[in-house]
């Protein structure tokens, strides 16, 4: 993909959110991923031009944060939490099974470009462990089997809806647009909370 599809008006509107333009680097990098699927050299050059800073300064930021990818990921980017709690509860088993099932290693992409795999750090959903993320949407309480069927369905083009998220799984570029702060109109979809989130409230209503 080339910069031709990067919409300069959108980029300028992102910059306009901030009192100082340089603060827009991060959402602009998310925006480049929304258009190209990863952080391209063209994207870095465009950001450097709009912010009037060196490309090296943009690259320095792009390479610091793990969500910015310097090569294409899958249409569905799968993250398996293997931080201690999720790992112990089954995350290690799920990650090993997915690597084997997909025939790829950590940070690998399937040959059809549909699915990529990454082991991730704690994603703030420990009461739903083991947790798998797809395009950074929550798939709670996973098992080896449920994670395998998630990636199989994603490869076939019909992934199940996230546990706590909109009623369909958006693709990687669409999710990146949300992370660039662009509204996709899906905020009202999905549950307000899962069962564990409501545990204390429920117990309190039971008088416990």
């Amino acid at each position: 993909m080339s910069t031709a599809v990067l919409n300069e008006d959108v980029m300028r509107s992102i910059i306009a959110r901030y009192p100082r333009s340089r603060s827009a680097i991060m959402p602009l990098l998310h925006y480049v991923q929304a258009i190209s699927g990863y952080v391209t050299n063209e994207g870095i050059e465009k950001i450097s031009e709009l912010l009037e800073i060196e490309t090296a300064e943009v690259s320095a930021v792009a390479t610091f944060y793990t969500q910015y990818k310097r090569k294409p990921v899958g249409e569905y980017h799968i993250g398996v939490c293997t931080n201690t709690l999720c790992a112990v509860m089954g995350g290690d088993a799920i990650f090993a099974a997915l690597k084997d099932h997909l025939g790829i290693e950590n940070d690998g992409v399937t040959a059809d470009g549909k699915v990529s795999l990454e082991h991730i750090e704690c994603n703030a959903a420990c009461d739903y462990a083991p947790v798998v993320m797809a395009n950074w949407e929550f798939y709670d309480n996973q098992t080896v089997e449920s994670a395998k069927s998630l990636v199989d369905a994603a490869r076939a083009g019909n992934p199940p809806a996230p546990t706590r998220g909109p009623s369909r799984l958006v693709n990687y570029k669409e999710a990146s647009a949300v992370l660039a702060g662009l509204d996709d109109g899906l905020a009202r979809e999905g549950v307000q909370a899962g069962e564990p989130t409501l545990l204390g409230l429920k117990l309190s209503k039971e008088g416990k």
Partner: protein
Amino acid sequence: MSKLTPVLSAHWDEKDSFTIEAYTRHGGYAASKKALAMDPDAVIQMVKDSGLRGRGGAGFPTGMKWGFIPQGDNKEHYLVVNADESEPGTCKDTPLLMANPHVLIDGCIIACHAIRAKRAFIYIRGEVTHVVRRVNAAIADAYKAGHLGNGIDVTLHIGAGAYICGEETALLDSLEGFRGQPRLRPPFPAIAGLYARPTVVNNVESIASVPAIIANGAEWYQSFGTEKSKGMTLYSLSGHVNNPGQLEAPLGITLREILDLAGGIRTGHTLKFWTPGGSSTPIFTDAHLDTPLDYEGVSAAGSMLGTKALQIFDETTCVVRAVLRWTEFYKHESCGKCTPCREGTWWLVQILRDLENGTGSEADLDKLLDLCDNIMGRSFCALGDGATSPITSSIKYFRDEYIAHLTNGGCPFDPVKSTLFAGALNS
């Protein structure tokens, strides 16, 4: 009388709890309206009087932090909300924002008024797409309803995967468009924070707790909790328990009480070790079941209340494996700015891997402790300090288990037994 006190979580069970309609239905935005009619100093005093302390880990009194902002300096002031929830085990702000983002915006308006800021930034981690949608939509709805845009603006900033950005000065660097690395202090953010302007950085739960304080008064808030740890808070129970989840209770509740309420350790198993407030807080054992979970109680018992992330591990869990994995996390997330943390966490991982594999030696335990001694207090920020907590505390309580790996020639545990689906496979 329930031991639980849902205030933040009071309406989370309503399907539309995240909407402005639901929040307004329950009296939302009345608190900011009330605060805006008050003198800013009176708002700060009220928050000081309430005893509210920072819920992001450090427990610093929120009102006092606000009071540090210089007044009449003719500079812009900023409020920055730390929603970069990434401390392993911590999972309270994320469900809060998914279920009720408006309470945070209500709190932002109050805090901005108090510190004479016209602008707040909410820095949310980037790995939670749907939470980003909810917060973004809530901000848009708050503008439409006229709560924002009349002198106070809120901007959402989305991170991109870096634990270090939970550290407040690294967060500020990140928000300014740089690599997220901590700053030397002083100057503190209250004097030179975002864009070198006076800035308050507060955790989501701290700011979200403010509307209820303004609405119900400092005395009401003070009536919950313990002598120096006032109010209620979200405890996040996870791991080997029958019912994990969020429980909002007065500060000072014990793990035994929480487990009794929530249905206990997973059936047929026993508590082995746990964290009171995330992986950076020294681990506890079953000897600490009755420790009051407030700032003083946990500290007196040798750990920290932290984020109240109660990660529970039963007897099937290998403590060396658990600590190794946390250490790998700190190594991965070390920003590289200071030598003790950058080099130290790398060496900690090497030694722990040998110990877990059974190829280390007993002398490695002393080497680990020596390394920790050279990281703790000598690192640029709390990430390095935090990396040492699981190691020193686990060696204190489970030295024998480390030794057993050496005599056994490897890990004596079966990892399958500690998985959530192990029970399902066996039954």
